[in-house]
């Protein structure tokens, strides 16, 4: 079944790069939703069901951490898995994000194979 995904990044170009990589990974996607910050993401999530949120951390207006905190306070949104896609490699930062409920962390640069491996694990879509 095709997945409904929301990609959150303040750069349209970076969102396009992520979507291209998702396509190359072989995941079957419905028309993906896109937001340029946490506020736009929350507005989209109130009106649309998604299977997964892929988000950056550093964004204007509302960053990824604040987005995750809002989602975790919402009875419906807190069930949606969130995966962070970022350039930072600090183990301390990654651990902080996981404590906030982030399901996985994909560090840039990433390959289609890497993104597929992580998302299969998060979504339970991997082969047995």
């Amino acid at each position, binding site marked *: 079944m095709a997945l409904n995904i929301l990609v959150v990044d303040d750069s349209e*170009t970076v969102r396009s*790069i992520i979507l*291209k990589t998702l396509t190359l990974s072989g995941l079957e996607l419905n028309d993906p939703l896109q937001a340029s910050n946490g506020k736009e993401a929350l507005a989209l999530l109130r009106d649309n069901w998604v299977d997964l949120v892929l988000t950056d951390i*550093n964004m*204007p207006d509302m960053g990824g951490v604040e987005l995750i905190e809002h989602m975790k306070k919402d009875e419906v949104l807190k069930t949606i898995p969130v995966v962070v896609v970022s350039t*930072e*490699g*600090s183990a*301390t930062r990654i651990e902080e994000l996981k404590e906030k409920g982030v399901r996985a962390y994909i*560090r840039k640069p990433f390959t289609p194979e890497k993104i597929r491996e992580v998302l299969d694990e998060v979504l339970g879509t991997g082969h047995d």
Partner: protein
Amino acid sequence: MTEDRKNILTRVFTDILEQMAFMFGDKASPDDFRETTEPMLRAQMTYRGNLCGSLSLAVPEAMCPELAANLLGTEPEDAGERHIYIDALKELLNVTCGNVLTAIAGEEPVFDLTVPEVSELSDAMRETMLNDETTVYLLVDEYPAALRLTVEDSA
């Protein structure tokens, strides 16, 4: 900056270029950068943590549509809008900065990174890069490029 840091910067940048954009960087001389007459762009960002400083990347503007096209999997003419290739240059710098900091400082420290900014490379900026012995020079698919990492201990 020690030679080690210059080597790290070169290795990380060329690895990322290859992985993200299928472009290849070879070591070059300051003269390759000094003598180019093409309009150049400079991307810069700063970082703050247990080390503070900045990372700057200067490349010919003509290289950027090719970079963007490779990142996006399109043709250069489809990535020719300035905002698209400027964003691609910012992303290349952003990914390079995060990975360079991990390579230099390890995986424990947390760094706050600013959003990259891009401007035309002024003569003064070019001279600053050329006068800094820590600047790294590369040919990226024949385009001259310069990378400058400044590192200072956190106050």
